């Protein structure tokens, strides 16, 4: 395994490489089945280079452990607002998640519906492309339209266009109070209708999820509110009124309980100890219950008001059922846990051509994580 300590060293290693490289941060989020090549890990390039709480910005090396970033933010009462998922429970991996891995896979959690995805918070990148060139794009300011936005292109490209070495990103203050409205017993369609109505209200919902099987076995619908305590209580009351026809919501304000409940959604923890393949499906929220209904034997956790479905199915099964039903309504599906090829969403012809073209330019020798990301449909 190669573990460069500096960007320059990394560039030399990539220049000298004569075969495929398996790029990894902490190695906790690897999907897409068995891979080829020598492992090139970024974990030795680490450290926070700059943190300005008053400007809501941080600059860190890609291999910096996520925990180190979160600890520094916590001290200033701030956080990564997009709430990145920890994949270790679901995938049964161990290792140390890195900030580079978070952005390389564009990993966002429940708060994505309110504040945006990881890619929306990434302000600047430095990376080494497949030819060993060191490239910089974006910066450390919140508004920047200087040239093309390669920052977004690199976010979510899973190391196939370049190896991230340094990231600058926006952070936000952590609100002092959190409340979760809870209601048991709704079927999928009613739950998504509730979540859509809550998200279409002016009450700034920061989490909207539904589990077909909650902690005590019954379905549970969850709506999160954050902010100053008076404001949270006011908005909770307003939402209870707005949603009264669906039942009587209970407001849970215990901080420990809130953290656990939302971490379970974020990490898809209920599927962690259970067998089977797990799919991540993105569709229009109101299409979600219908999509789930078309996949026989699937268990679902809905996040993002229904727009994100986590589907657990029997091992090696239902891939075509999932792909077909998602294709009918519009959206995309990725197999996050499971074996064999076909984990990534196939792309329509013109987009596959564009992606292949980009890949050929950023990695002319095709050595960066071959086999990852999309193929033509």
């Amino acid at each position: 395994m190669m573990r460069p300590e500096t960007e320059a060293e990394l560039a030399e290693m990539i220049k000298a490489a004569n075969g495929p490289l398996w790029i990894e941060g902490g190695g906790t989020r690897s999907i897409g089945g068995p891979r080829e090549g020598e492992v090139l890990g970024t974990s030795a390039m680490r450290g926070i280079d700059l943190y300005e709480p008053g400007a809501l910005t941080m600059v860190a090396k890609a291999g910096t452990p996520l925990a180190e970033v979160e600890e520094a933010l916590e001290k200033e009462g701030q956080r990564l607002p997009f709430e990145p998922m920890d994949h270790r429970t679901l995938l049964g991996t161990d290792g140390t998640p890195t900030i580079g891995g978070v952005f390389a896979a564009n990993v966002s959690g429940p708060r994505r519906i309110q504040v945006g995805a990881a890619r929306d918070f990434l302000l600047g990148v430095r990376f080494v492309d497949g030819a060993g060139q060191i490239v910089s794009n974006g910066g450390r300011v919140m508004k920047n339209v200087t040239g093309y936005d390669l920052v977004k292109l690199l976010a979510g490209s899973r190391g196939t266009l370049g190896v991230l070495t340094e990231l600058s990103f926006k952070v936000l203050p952590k609100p002092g109070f959190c409340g979760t409205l809870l209601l048991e017993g709704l079927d999928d369609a009613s739950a998504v209708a509730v979540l859509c109505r809550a998200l279409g209200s002016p009450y700034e919902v920061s989490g909207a999820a539904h589990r077909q099987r909650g902690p005590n076995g019954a379905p549970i619908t969850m709506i999160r509110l954050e902010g100053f305590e008076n404001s949270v209580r006011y908005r909770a009351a307003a939402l209870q009124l707005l949603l009264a026809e669906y039942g009587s919501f209970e407001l849970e304000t215990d901080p420990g309980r809130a953290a656990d409940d939302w971490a379970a959604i974020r990490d898809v923890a209920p599927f962690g100890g259970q067998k089977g393949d797990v799919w991540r499906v993105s569709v229009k929220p109101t299409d979600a219950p219908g999509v789930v209904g078309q996949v026989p034997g699937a268990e679902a956790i809905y996040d993002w008001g229904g727009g994100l479905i986590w589907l657990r199915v029997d091992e090696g099964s239902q891939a075509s059922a999932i792909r077909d039903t998602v294709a009918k309504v519009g959206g995309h599906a990725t197999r996050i846990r499971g074996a064999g090829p076909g984990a990534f969403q196939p792309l329509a012809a013109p987009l596959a051509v564009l992606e292949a073209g980009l890949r050929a330019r950023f990695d002319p020798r095709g050595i960066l994580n071959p086999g990852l990301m999309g193929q033509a449909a």
Partner: protein
Amino acid sequence: MEMPQPDARILARKPEIVRQLSAVLPAGAVISDEAETRAYECDALTAYKCPPLAVVLPASTREVSDVLRVCHEMGVPVVPRGSGTSLAGGALPTGDCVILGVARMNDVLETDYENRFIRVQSGRTNLSVTGAVEADGFFYAPDPSSQLACAIAGNIAMNSGGAHCLKYGVTTNNLMGVTMVLMDGTVTEIGGAYLDAAGYDLLGVICGSEGQLGVVTEATLRILRKPEGARPVLIGFDSNEVAGACVSDIIKAGVLPVAIEFMDRPCIRATEAFAGAGYPDCEALLIVEVEGSDAEIDEQLAIILEIARRHDPVELRESKSAEESARIWLGRKSAFGAMGQINDYMCLDGTIPVSQLPFVLRRIGEMSRDYGLDVGNVFHAGDGNMHPLILYDANKPGDLERCEAFGADILKLCVEVGGCLTGEHGVGIEKRDLMTHQYAPVDLEMQMAVKDVFDPGWLLNPAKVFPLAESAPRRSAAEQGLCPSP
């Protein structure tokens, strides 16, 4: 600002080009008469003008595809145009180009409140997107100050921001999908009414690519429920440093205002003379606006006022009513007009880290004295996006050049302190030749490589964004028909 010489071979083929364009478009959608093409000779960067070879006004994705296919086959450059409000010259024609205007494509195609999106044709104006949903209590968040006129197509091309992006983000954060036509006429669908499109984030690259990668004909946009209410507070300080520190403390305190606007003394004086909003005559002025229910607004404003008091303000004015709010915003909203009363002005758009605010304002003051040109500062302080307004006299020989040199120095300063050349207006031709101050050759090369993939012949808006010297090999290869392979 230089533009490439028009290609004589294209000029010579004008009748044939116009004939072929007319063959694929309805009558009245092709403008080739020299008097009429003059209406398209410039955008809001009015110092530069050049009538195009022809103008086409297609009304559908299909027609856009046909136009692009014709131009692609004939090797004619195309400059896409929204409403022509670019301050950076993004829609400035060359004499050998076809202007592709999207103004006839302005329909709302789909509105979905349950899933909170609207799908529109890209020629629709920014404000009329909100107009289509506001009766039902929704709005489209990005609000560039040209929002009455500017088109969604231009917003996407420039990744436009606005006063409220501290809370709601800029165009790229509110764009869910596009229908985009490539230069060879291929129609692509990227993203849609769901989050985070599959594959690479092409949507993220297209947004802000200044019409160089494709022509967006339809867009799926996120809409939000309007907040219950909003109210501002006005705070005056006797130093820029203290005002800057106050901004930083407000942000750190965990309040997230929708807007923090900053004006300096020259700008305050100009707007007072013009609009009479009753602003205090002080060194720096902040307008901070928060949203929510009445009680929520009171609670947030109390925190902001408490922070402000710790910084010894010379003025504190909290709005208690819609009338008072309007009065607080009056001066800020008339700032550009007020500066325009005094003289011609050039509006800059650099972004700096918020912590560098006092230093940068001091340096701009020093440079203003050196250049002998007045400058006023009015900007979005929460995100460090500055808009220095340099006053000059367009009728005085040499003044424009001096103003441009001063502007370039300010933008270089923005880059030196860790910021960038443009926060929301785009590069266009205005900042094209400064790109080498922010990016190394390899950084620009990677960006141009992206254009190679989308537009191998470099026919779409080719003379923008990249310094002419850097893009010359690609543009001349295109002219000789030696396109890099896709």
